[in-house]
């Protein structure tokens, strides 16, 4: 059996990040990627928060920022839209501090971003084998000793399993549970082509800058989830994320794909995408179980990185997976290096991985938002409240036969009507968990 120091299963951001860290340190690393190229099987909503690059791979960050290589647009406008019945409320943040010289997030597309990082791995001496699917983890006495890919078997001291959210290999080998509907959302989107100038006009953007808009409410018909709209250079990413447990449990046979069609037709969305051509349609599962649903992230001869380890976070205003992938891949590389230095690739030798993850935002943020998965199961967030906010504001903006309303009285009356209810107060009280 051929043998390398380290095999990485999956050339997504977690796997490539691990491979970059290892190859940079002179470790012989082989990445197995089942797509035609890195990124061919990956889907993002659209946006990468950049602090991870700045902190763990400053040289990559500078290169990426200066040549713009992997990025679409820096996000300078953040919008949250609450879609009520016949009315919508949008909160907009346009921050000059989010733009150059150090944008805090960029819209991205995976085929471009992942290929860019793959090139960096190759430049450091890492080997990326595309069109190669790992079929099985090879186990020997409870230890992962390599992988089988078709007829070929490759051995390794450590296998970094970065196979993505479904975790077929790891669950097939009993290293984690298969994903459950209760902890998963379905994300799916269209890439809609529009000229750059049209995008900038419609979203009130300076040349080259971008917007990110999240939608809550009607878009998921009251189910946990939402809609998103990101501006790329010459296209928009328009998509929906919805709880799989709630989707399949509806009982009315609503087809998931209809949610996106309905979303595109909304009066708040249709004018933004008008005239655009759909250039690609994609779908992906999203792990949203939070820290309580994480599998054990290391064991004899292996580590789990990225979504294969359930490492992604829905924190309501920010939805993150790619920076978790990059950061966990980086820590996986560190852990492998530490294990190699001690010549111990057992679970004990690799257990530093979890400690490293705790030192970064990966496990810290997941801990901090531990209660989000249970909070967002609350459907009032997605049907009642977006509507209530709109009705309250409608009252304040209405001029009727008796003239303009008293702002204070009308506001107080509306707030009492919409929000002074036992269930609402209980929901507010439950938010304390986020503190």
């Amino acid at each position, binding site marked *: 059996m051929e043998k390398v120091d380290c095999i990485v299963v999956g050339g997504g951001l977690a796997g490539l990040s691990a491979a970059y860290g290892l190859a940079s340190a002179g470790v012989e690393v082989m990445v197995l990627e*089942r*797509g*035609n*190229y890195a*990124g*061919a*099987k*990956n*889907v*993002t909503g659209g946006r990468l928060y950049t602090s991870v690059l700045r902190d763990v791979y400053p040289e990559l960050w500078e290169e990426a920022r200066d040549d713009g290589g992997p990025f679409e647009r820096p996000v300078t406008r953040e919008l949250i839209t609450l879609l009520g019945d016949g009315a919508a409320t949008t909160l907009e943040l346009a921050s000059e501090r989010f733009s150059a010289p150090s944008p805090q997030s960029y819209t991205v*597309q*995976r*085929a*471009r971003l992942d290929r860019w990082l793959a090139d960096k791995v190759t430049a450091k001496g890492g080997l990326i084998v*595309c*069109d*190669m*699917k790992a079929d099985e983890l090879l186990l020997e006495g409870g230890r992962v000793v390599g992988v089988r*890919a*078709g007829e070929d078997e490759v051995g390794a001291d450590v296998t970094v399993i970065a196979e993505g*959210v*479904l975790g*077929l290999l790891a669950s097939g080998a009993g290293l984690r549970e*298969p*994903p*459950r*509907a209760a902890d*998963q959302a*379905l994300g*799916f*989107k*269209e*890439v809609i082509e529009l000229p750059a100038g049209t995008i900038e006009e419609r979203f009130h953007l300076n040349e080259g800058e971008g917007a990110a808009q999240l939608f809550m409410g009607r878009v998921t018909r009251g189910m946990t989830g939402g809609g998103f709209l990101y501006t*790329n250079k010459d*296209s928009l*990413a328009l998509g929906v994320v919805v709880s*799989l447990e709630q*989707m*399949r449990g509806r*009982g009315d*046979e*609503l*087809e*998931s*794909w209809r949610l*996106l*069609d309905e979303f595109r037709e909304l009066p708040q969305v249709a004018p933004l995408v008008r005239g655009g051509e*759909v*250039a*690609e*349609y*994609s*779908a*992906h*599962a999203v792990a949203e179980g939070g820290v309580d649903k994480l599998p054990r992230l290391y064991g004899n001869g292996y580590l789990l990185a990225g979504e294969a380890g359930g490492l992604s976070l829905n924190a309501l205003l920010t939805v993150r997976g790619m920076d978790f992938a990059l950061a966990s891949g980086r820590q996986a590389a560190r852990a492998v290096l530490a294990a190699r230095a001690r010549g111990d690739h057992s679970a004990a030798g690799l257990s530093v991985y979890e400690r490293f993850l705790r030192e970064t935002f990966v496990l810290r943020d997941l801990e901090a938002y531990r209660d989000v998965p249970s909070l967002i199961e609350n459907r009032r967030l997605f049907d009642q409240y977006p509507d209530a906010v709109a009705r309250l504001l409608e009252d304040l903006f209405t001029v009727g036969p008796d003239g303009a309303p008293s702002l204070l009285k009308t506001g107080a009356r509306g707030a009492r009507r919409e929000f002074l209810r036992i269930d609402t107060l209980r929901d507010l009280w439950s938010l304390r968990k986020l503190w």
Partner: protein
Amino acid sequence: MKVDAKLGTDVFKLDTEPHIVVDTEICRTVCVTRPCLYVCPADLFELDDTGKMTVNWEGCLECGTCLICCDDRALTWRYPRGGMGVQYRMS
């Protein structure tokens, strides 16, 4: 826009064998709710005239939604072989 037309914008490398196989007996006799018929974002599952479950695996986006939602284990679900299946150019 029809889901079919949207899938038509995607690049697929067709595998020679299906990567999703349905145990139609389980669908027929055990499963009551048949979530695969409506959770699949590519709308690939169909009951044919005889009530047999079929899947048009060729247009699969490989999201795994059907697998995650099938509690009756009626699906044998693998990724397509290396180099096969959907190849996203953007996304």
